[in-house]
Each structure stands twice: as C-alpha cells, then as structure tokens.
C-alpha cells in the first residue's frame, strides 16, 4: 500500500525522490535502462507516463517526448507491459501517469484492474478532477491503486480538503502555475503554500514542477516528503545519454 511504503522509506530518508519518465521514449529499451539506472541511483518512486497525443498539462520537453514515443509506435498495451516488467523487476513503487482519455478508452475498470495486476501502486491523472472521476478514483481505491490527487497554489483550503478526501498514497503539490519544465523559485511563498497543504491532508506531500538540483531538494527537506524530478531527467537523457542518469540522481542527495 503506497502510503505505508512511503512512510517506511521516510524513516530512513529525510526526503524521498520521485522521478518521471515517458514510456517508449526514446524507446522501450531505453526506458527500461533509464528506470534501471534510476533505481540503482536510489530513486524511491517513479511516475511512468503513458504517452497521449494531447498532453495539455505538460511543457515542451515532456510534450515532445510524448509525441516521439507515439511516433515510434508506443501503444497503451506496450506501456503497461513495460510497467509490469519493471514493477516486477525492481523493488520500488511505480505509479502510472497519463491523461484521462487513455484510461477512458481502455475502459476505466479494465484499466484499474490492469494497474493492480501489474503491481502499479498508484495513478496520476492531471486532467481528471474528482468531480469528473469519482467512480474511477473509487475503483482505484478498491483495488489498492492509490489515486494521487493534485494541489496547486491556487487551490483554496476548502478545495484541498475536498480533494484529499479522494486522495491516497500521497498528494502531488505542483509548485507553481504553468506547465512542467519551467523554472520555480524556491521561496517563502512556496513554504507557506506547503504548510497550507500540510494542514489540508494527513497524506505525505510530494512537490513537483521545476526541481533541478540538490539545492532545490535541500530547500524542501522538512517541508515536503517527496521531491519530484520530472523534466530535468529527460533533459539529461537527451543531452548526455542514458548512462549519465545515475550520476545525476546521485548528485541530488
């Protein structure tokens, strides 16, 4: 169960690392090797994005990764198979990240049971507010797949409470307005936002959007439980190749 897994790890580590990759980019083989490298480098959680043709919440880097993956023929089936393979191979928790249409077309219940069977611990669906996805989210809960919900700096306290009622595992707090990949300034403002999040939920907090280096992560220690590195790892792979991913991750600790 995802929350327990996180709390356990938090006994040893002051802050956990979650990374994000797009399945099938640059290729399925590379995806596997990147995941392997990340796990070896001590990542605690991973978001595996099933590519979608219309990723409106993603910035240019992840957007293009989605397109490339699709262009090279990545299918939902193929992505789930790879997800299963890594989930069975490595002993960290893997989550699915994708847009609602992927699950909707696959069949909500079918998608949930697939995730459960493939030992995927949770799912992040950025374009699915609980108002639109209640049944789907509840089905995940039934099958022990944590529906990971999102808080934003513009989310009111009332709404944070409303959201956390549906959330399991942890809450994904986006650091700022905008899409993935842009810069974030790690400021007092961010700090007070995180304490608002704390008040609203008893679940662990992940902070994502714009984390690039050790300093960012140090800043988050004591304020968040999980630091999410998304776009930056993709940039590293693109610039320096799969081999250098491990080094990058280690540099963050």
């Amino acid at each position, binding site marked *: 169960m995802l929350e327990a897994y996180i709390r356990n790890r938090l006994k040893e580590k002051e802050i956990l690392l979650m990374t994000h990759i797009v399945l099938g980019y640059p290729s399925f083989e590379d995806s596997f090797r990147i995941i392997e490298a990340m796990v070896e480098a001590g990542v605690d959680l991973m978001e595996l994005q099933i590519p*979608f043709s219309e990723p409106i919440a993603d*910035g240019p880097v992840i957007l*293009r990764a989605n397109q490339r993956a699709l262009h090279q023929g990545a299918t939902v089936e193929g992505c789930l198979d790879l997800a299963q393979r890594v989930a069975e191979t490595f002993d960290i928790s893997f989550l699915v990240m994708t847009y609602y249409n992927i699950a909707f077309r696959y069949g909500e219940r079918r998608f949930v049971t697939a995730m459960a069977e493939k030992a995927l611990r949770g799912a992040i669906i*950025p374009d699915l507010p609980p108002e639109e996805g209640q049944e789907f989210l509840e089905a995940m809960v039934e099958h022990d797949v944590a529906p990971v*919900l999102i808080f934003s700096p513009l989310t009111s306290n009332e709404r944070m409470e409303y959201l956390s009622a549906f959330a399991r595992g942890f809450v994904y707090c986006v650091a700022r307005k905008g899409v993935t990949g842009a810069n974030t300034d790690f400021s007092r403002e961010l700090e007070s936002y995180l304490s608002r999040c704390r008040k609203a939920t008893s679940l662990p907090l992940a902070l994502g959007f714009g984390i690039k280096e050790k300093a960012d992560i140090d800043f988050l220690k004591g304020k968040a439980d999980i630091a999410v590195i998304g776009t930056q790892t993709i940039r590293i792979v693109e610039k320096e190749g799969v081999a250098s991913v491990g080094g990058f991750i280690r540099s963050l600790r």
Partner: protein
Amino acid sequence: MINRRYYGQFGGAYIPEILVSTFDHLVSAFEEAKNDPGFWQEYEEIMSTYSCRPTPITFAENLTRHFGGARIFIKREDLNHTGAHKANNVMGQGLLVKRMRKSRVIAETGAGQHGVATATMAARFGFKCTIYMGEVDVVRQSPNVFWMERLGAEVIPVKDGTRILKDAINEAFRDWVTNMDDTHYVLGTACGPHPFPEMVSYFQSIIGREARRQILERESRLPSGVYACVGGGSNAMGIFSGFFDDPVELVGVEAGGEGLETGRHASRLASSDGTVGVAQGYKTCFLQDSDGQMKETHSVAAGLDYVGVSPILASLRDKGRVRFEATTNSEVLDAMSFTLKKEGLIPALESAHAFAQAFKEVPDLKQDDIILINQSGRGDKDIFTIADAFADPKWQEFIRKKAEEYRA
C-alpha cells in the same frame, strides 16, 4: 467546487487543478452577465455598431429557380466585421473580459478567422493579444497572419503535435495555466470545458434569434429546414438555437474531405469513425484510434479541420434533434462556384459545406417549403486555398511574378 455541465453523456470540464479557480471565476462572471438584463443589450449594441448586426437574410431567387424545390434563404454572417460569425463570439467574450477586469487575451486559430476576429476585438478593447496557430496553418493562412500582426497581435506558430488547430488549442491552454491572472482564453468555438460550449453558443445564438424573427417577418412562417456547417459547432449552434422549439429540421454539415470511405475527412458525427473520448478538457465524439490517440483530420476548409465537436451538438445527434451529414471537398467546391455565378455571393469554404448539402436535398422539397442556409463567412479571405483548389493558372502566374519581384 468545479462547475460542470453535461449534455447527455457529453461535455464536462476535464481541467488541471491549477485552472479550477480560473474556470470558477469565468463561470460566475458569465452567469452574472447572463442574469444582468443590461448585458445582452450592451452586446447587441456593440454588434450593431461595430459590426452590422442584424445581418440580413437574402432570398436566393436564382438558386431557388434552378433547383425548383423549396425557397432558399441565406443568413448572411459573411457581412460581419472581419467576414464571419466569429465576430459574435469574440465581441461577447470581450465584454466579459472587461467585466473580469483582465487585460490580455489569447486565442487559438485554424483558418485564421477566429485569430483575426480576436485581434480586432483586442485592438478595440485595448487588450494585449497573443494568437496560437499551428505552423501548418500559419503557412496556408498567411494572409490572416499578416492582418493579425498588423492589428497588433503576437502570432505564435505552434510547432508541436500535428501543428494544426488542436495543437494550437493545447498551446493556448499551456499559456493560460501560466497567465490566468491577467489573461482570458477566448476559445473560438462551442467546444472545450464548461462554460465554453454554453458561453460560445450563447453569444452565437444572436444568429438564430435574428434569423427566426426575420424569416417570420418576411414569410410569416418558419423554414422546414436549417443548414449549417460544423467545425467546432459554433455557427451551427448559433443558428439552430433559434429553432430548437420549432418543428424545423436542423442539419449539421461536416467536412467529408476526400470522402468518408477514404478515412481522410473530419466527420465526427455523420461518419461512423467518431468515438466518445475526452481531450482538450471536454468529452465528445473525437476522431481517435483505439488507444485514444487523436487522429489527423482532412478538409479543404481549415475551419472544419478539427478532431472534436461541440458536446451540445453530439448530444443533439443522440437525441435525434439534429441530423448530421458530410460533403466532400469536390462537392463543396462545385457548390461554391455555383453560388458565386448564380447569386454573386461568396461563401467561405466552410460555409459552402452547408450550401452543398442543401443543394442535394432542396430539389426534393415542396415548392412552398422554405430552407435557411447559414453563410457563416465570406470566401474572399480564403483566396489562396480556393485558387489552389481550382488550380487557377492565371493566379499561379500572378504569384510567380510577385515572387520574382520579391526576389529582385
């Protein structure tokens, strides 16, 4: 708490958390405006002074005589400022932006019509303006890019995805999630998350309100059928909404492209290729593969070249209230030529879809029936597309000469 609105199984608001408060704000601003009796008045006032509403209905005497069936009337949205019904929607949203005290507008555009309309609205209201346009469209609709920039708008070519309308919409959303504080996204058609389908249809309903009144005044009876082309669905919703409670057949005409059988079309409701899905923030019938990835669409009319369609229209099809048909590129070009020569009217390629379908059906209607076709826009902005469609040699010669001048 998000406001959602469904039409049958379609609609909703599938938006990232970061936009929820923005949509809440927009919904309440729109609701207030709707309930303020002064607002619609203000809207009609600006449309009658800045554009030329009410736009007339024209009796197409020659077409009527030629087909020998029902009497054909044409609602002249082509006479609007900037040449299409798009002006209605942008001016309405412009008034709303003023109420929300925002200072910047963004918009997507495919054909470029909505982009030009938004740019004029922004100039008129003194808003900053950024237009997102697929790189493919930037090239094929360059004249509109020229005007948008002359009007003071920044035009950003979208180089990702299929680089057409849908990708421009995605890019506009990306801008919006960053700049919602001072920025309103002027969506150009009756699609997207609530309240856009309802809101855009509300502003476009001015077409149907006028048309119903005009036809009754002139003919003292209702038309038996109303024809409109359907891209996102805003001009169709606009004219149809005037007749929902009447015994009037409503016919939405989609882009049949190279023919439904070829798969190269943009028909989401008339063809069997459209399937229910969720993208760009709303649920409707999309042209997508079995995984849910959106397909490429094809039409001679850039404004109809879109994967999604208004959720309101999708549900009206299910209800059987609106019949959907598709006409092919070549049928559309024939209908356009014929209308030019017979009536001296110049429909946009989008609008010509409605003409083409009406021409197929009108001969079988009774002579004392009336049909109404919505001429959503004028074709003279499409000259490059149309000249290409007709492969006009003189035109090509002219362009070659021009190019040489520029090389010199």
